[in-house]
């Protein structure tokens, strides 16, 4: 049985071109980029090339504004903690939103333990932040605003441009968690004007466990990893050259094909949303239809719990993800969905279907074909469902 993989937001298959580039690098590039002899130079060149490719994808003015990290989480931690620690006497207050990824939430909670205070602003029913609310939350001692670009549970895209304008007016550095935006929708950090933008390699078909942080020239932050002089002294440690080469290739491909990929994903998304009512009666579509990731659908199937749906689909060879507490190993239903106003049971029944370039219309159809009977048989078990 062929697996139909519709969980590209958790982990995207590495693109064939990227695999080829990495397989080649595996045979060739093994000098230490910091060491001075010729083999080292070859690696330094590969690193520089990848940096240019990534800078190209995100619209950075200078390649050196891109620092490679080991994942989106590291980028986020470096951006947030690094800025907070470097702020010194300027203040100890940070503004964020209620729908951030755990990498942001937990970084901030760690800073709270270190004496910082945090204001977290709410979102509306579509999961959008109001820039005016952010403006109001900024205080004299605010040293950072951290807002995500696109949400990985609802697909909602935030008004980051307006938030950036607010932050520039108030002269507060802005960090944008763009892990689920870069490579999926157009991102131009130079136009955005944020000081810090986090992203990863995998969402657009690069290898997992490789990330990047855009640090606008002139931005001060303390490294998270102290040691050698790699990455412009912003991140010490021997580079994962293989991963970085893969990220570079994935960035090059994404920059070239982004509009086509978005168009294609939107087609699959629309097909799914159009046909969904034919197989499920009672469901909610989450997020903001006017500002959403083209490749993600977030639906809450009412009266059901998500892991059980996911598991049954998986048995039929269809892989999706769920935001149910049971599945995520978390204690409560997703804070993102609850923040957007879903009730507990609906949040528990949320499926996230996400497309990659390898998916086809047949995949959508197969998902729907399997979903119908799955929902029917689980509704029979549910104490919440009254016919």
């Amino acid at each position, binding site marked *: 049985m062929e697996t139909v993989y519709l969980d590209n937001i958790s982990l995207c298959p590495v693109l064939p071109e990227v695999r080829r580039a990495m397989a080649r690098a595996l045979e060739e590039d093994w000098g230490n980029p910091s060491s001075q002899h010729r083999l080292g130079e070859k690696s330094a060149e590969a690193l520089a090339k990848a940096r240019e490719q990534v800078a190209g994808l995100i619209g950075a003015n200078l390649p050196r504004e891109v620092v490679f990290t080991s994942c989106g989480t590291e980028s986020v931690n470096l951006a947030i903690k690094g800025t907070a620690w470097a702020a010194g006497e300027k203040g100890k207050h940070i503004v964020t939103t209620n729908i951030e990824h755990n990498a*942001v939430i937990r970084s*901030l909670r760690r800073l709270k333990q270190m004496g910082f205070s945090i204001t977290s602003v709410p979102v509306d029913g579509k999961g959008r932040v109001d820039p005016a609310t952010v403006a109001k939350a900024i205080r004299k001692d605010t040293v950072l605003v951290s807002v995500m670009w696109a949400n990985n549970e609802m697909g909602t895209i935030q008004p980051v441009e307006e938030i950036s304008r607010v932050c520039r007016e108030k002269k507060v550095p802005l960090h944008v968690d763009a892990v689920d935006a870069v490579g999926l929708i157009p991102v131009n950090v130079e136009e955005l004007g944020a000081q810090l933008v986090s992203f990863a390699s995998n969402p657009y078909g690069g290898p997992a466990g490789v990330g990047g942080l855009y640090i606008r020239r002139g931005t001060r932050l303390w490294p998270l990893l102290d040691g050698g002089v790699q990455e412009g002294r912003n991140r010490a440690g021997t580079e994962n050259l293989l991963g970085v080469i893969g990220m570079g290739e994935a960035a090059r491909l994404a920059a070239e094909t982004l509009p086509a990929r978005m168009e294609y994903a939107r087609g699959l998304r629309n097909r799914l949303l159009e046909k969904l009512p034919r197989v499920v009666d009672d469901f909610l579509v989450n997020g903001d239809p006017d500002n959403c990731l083209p490749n993600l659908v977030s639906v809450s199937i009412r009266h059901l719990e998500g892991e059980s749906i996911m598991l049954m689909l998986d048995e039929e060879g269809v892989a999706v993800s769920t935001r149910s507490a*049971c599945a995520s190993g978390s*204690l409560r239903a997703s804070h993102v969905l609850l923040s957007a106003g879903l009730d507990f049971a609906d949040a528990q029944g949320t499926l996230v279907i996400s497309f990659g370039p390898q998916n086809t219309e047949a995949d959508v159809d197969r998902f729907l074909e399997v979903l119908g009977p799955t929902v029917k048989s689980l509704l029979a078990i549910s*104490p919440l469902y009254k016919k």
Partner: protein
Amino acid sequence: MYSKTVMDHFKNPRNVGTIEDADGIGELGNPLCGDMMTIYIKVVDDRIDDIKFQTFGCGAAIAVSSMLTEIAKGKTLDEAKKITNKDVAEALEGLPKNKLHCSNLGADALKLAIKDYEDKKAGRPREKTPPDQHLHTPEEKCYCPYCDTEVPEGQAICENCAFSEEEPAD
């Protein structure tokens, strides 16, 4: 992740549904993950003659409910009261450590159903247990599904990371 037996009971759950004129109903919610289980029993000659369940919960919770009803069916009430969550988990050939709390739901819900039957028979007013009352018994270890550390007896949730997901960062 799940054993074959769990998957079998999850995919083909036994005794699903309600009993219209049930003699006892036990309803229990799990404060850890917000899930719900309802057990219906029909009692004949102090034996569980019929048993059905409805569950809103994960694969493990469904399998636990199904297995529990299989074990309980035909047992005397006294025997049924002695079914432990561990018995159910063992009959399922084990549950992942962070899913052990789902199995706690099963035996507890059955006990509530039996109590409901006995209360009714004795003419006592039927107690409705608030669904978030999770009964930790001393011999059954319970692990936080989030951080995998043991949740001590008498504590409903893991202190280490209680509800940390839900709250925003401030």
